[in-house]
């Protein structure tokens, strides 16, 4: 059943919240981030910080230094873009805090540019000890939250406003740092994360009908990235297309290109947002900004045919 990963996160947080170490922090967006579910169940471990995200991040760091496992949630653009506070009070301090950015990317649609988290992965990825996770469906999100309870060190969890179809089956087990191969193929490898995993799958269907065999990788852990899985894709497929609902600079595509640049190489095409976004439906925007399945398929065709 299609579900927004922010909702899956909220449900999982209530469940892991049975553990007394777990806290939730909100910046007046609890109904949007679904942390209101935690508040209803565990009110004594919920801190409402108001519209003051820098302080919320610092309070989370303080809770972590006292041995708690705080999940501080807001929109990706409002929490992760407080990079300097995260760098000092969470990253450099090595506070065991989890920062959860919902409403990732242009996929939020109508609200437009001011609410779109489009640079958050770049900022979080640059912090040496920060893990960066972006699950692609309900099951993966639930398991990622469960994983984060005992993860050691700061972590950033990126979540969607829009609903995402189920990709992973009953047997799925989330493995931190390990990309999931969703389709086999050796002509080209399509790499997505979060919402864009679904675009990569759509493209693979299109390409399959044309006789192009596309491998699809779901990179739910953007940092530390699965270098082995990406190098294997490069060796087997020689062409890689990455697609992300994030700026083309510093996100999934950059992370993949960094791995490839230090390997035997492959052609890498990076699809992502090059702008601040605007209002519209998620589908319209994905197509207009070049990250829908159609664009992924076209990039793959060009890569396979060797055209620039």
């Amino acid at each position: 059943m299609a579900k927004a990963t922010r909702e899956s996160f909220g449900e999982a947080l209530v469940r892991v919240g049975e553990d007394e170490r777990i806290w939730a922090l909100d910046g007046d967006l609890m109904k949007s981030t679904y942390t209101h579910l935690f508040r209803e169940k565990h009110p004594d471990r919920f801190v409402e910080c108001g519209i003051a995200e820098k302080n919320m991040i610092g309070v989370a760091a303080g809770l972590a230094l006292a041995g708690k496992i705080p999940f501080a949630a807001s929109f990706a653009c409002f929490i992760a873009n407080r990079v300097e506070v995260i760098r000092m009070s969470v990253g450099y301090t090595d506070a065991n805090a989890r920062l959860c950015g919902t409403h990732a990317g242009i996929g939020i649609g109508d609200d437009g540019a001011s609410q779109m988290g489009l640079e958050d992965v770049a900022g979080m990825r640059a912090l040496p000890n920060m893990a960066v996770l972006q699950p692609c469906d309900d099951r993966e999100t639930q398991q990622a939250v469960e994983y984060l309870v005992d993860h050691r060190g700061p972590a950033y969890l990126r979540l969607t406003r829009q609903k995402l179809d189920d990709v992973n089956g009953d047997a799925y087990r989330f493995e931190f740092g390990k990309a999931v191969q969703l389709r086999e193929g050796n002509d080209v490898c399509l790499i997505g994360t979060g919402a864009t995993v679904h675009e990569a799958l759509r493209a693979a269907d299109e390409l399959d009908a044309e006789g192009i065999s596309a491998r699809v990788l779901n990179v739910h852990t953007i940092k530390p990235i699965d270098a082995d899985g990406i190098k294997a894709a490069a060796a087997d497929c020689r062409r890689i297309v990455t697609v992300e609902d994030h700026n083309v600079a510093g996100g999934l595509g950059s992370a993949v290109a960094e791995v490839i640049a230090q390997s035997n190489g492959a052609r890498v095409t990076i699809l992502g947002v090059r702008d601040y976004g605007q209002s519209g439906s998620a589908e319209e925007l994905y197509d207009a900004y070049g990250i829908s399945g159609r664009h992924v398929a076209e990039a793959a065709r060009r890569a396979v045919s060797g055209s620039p």
Partner: protein
Amino acid sequence: MSQLANDLDRDTLIKELTEEARQLRIEDIKMLVAAGSGHPGGTLSAAEMIAALYLSKLRLKPDEPGWPDRDRFILSKGHCVPIVYAALARIGTIPKEWLGTLRKFDSPLQGHPDRQRCPGIEANTGSLGQGLSIAVGLAVAARHDQAPWRVYCMMGDGETQSGQIWEAAMLAGRLGVSNLVGILDNNQVQQSLPVKEILDIDPVAQKYRDFNWHVREIDGHDVGQCVDALDEAETVTDRPTLILSHTIKGKGVSWMELSADWHGKAPSEEEGRVALDELEGKISAEESRKRFEALQKEGT
């Protein structure tokens, strides 16, 4: 060496803490001279309060810095950490020999607090305006756990201009975390100019009161007032306490006092000798100033 005995009569305690503050200033100047850089003004202004905290008020096990029930001290004005290092060496949490390595490559004594490198440091600070938020988080956790430990956070008047301080102050007041004590080292001068000329924070006491804090104003160079204010904070049960500590930047070295020039510049060896002579009572403030001015003439 450990903290001062807790059964001292008040007069003896005050006398000893006053002397401890003087010794901290002396160590501070020695460290900065050896380092060749650092922040004398804001370290010297905090000496009495740091002495009152580390030598008396804070519940610490000096040889067990990770003791779970220890009081937490967060230095939000992170650039003033040398005087804290001096206190940590004084109580034996770190070896005294470390003090000579301040700001050197691979030293545990980084230019700003680093909890991974230096025992006794609770949070990494130095990007101003962030410490109080961390202190609020600690206080919230301790209250929830009904833990015995308390949280102290020293801030500067310059960093009080930062919005995050007020975000944290508003939340702490709203939550009524009475196990939290903010200490504002109101030394009147920031990096470039007097605080009043950069962006006046007054009436800062009223601002904290409006945010539901208990506020106690003191002369921060009177150790007795520091001790009394810290004691009083423990009697407040429904809100956090702010100790508004009126101090003088560069206190104790006459030619550094209230001078923005000595915010972030270490004294040279010659200047350091003059400063130490004054702090050690070998020369008067007047003589100190004369010798300092003579050095400046020589230098030009």
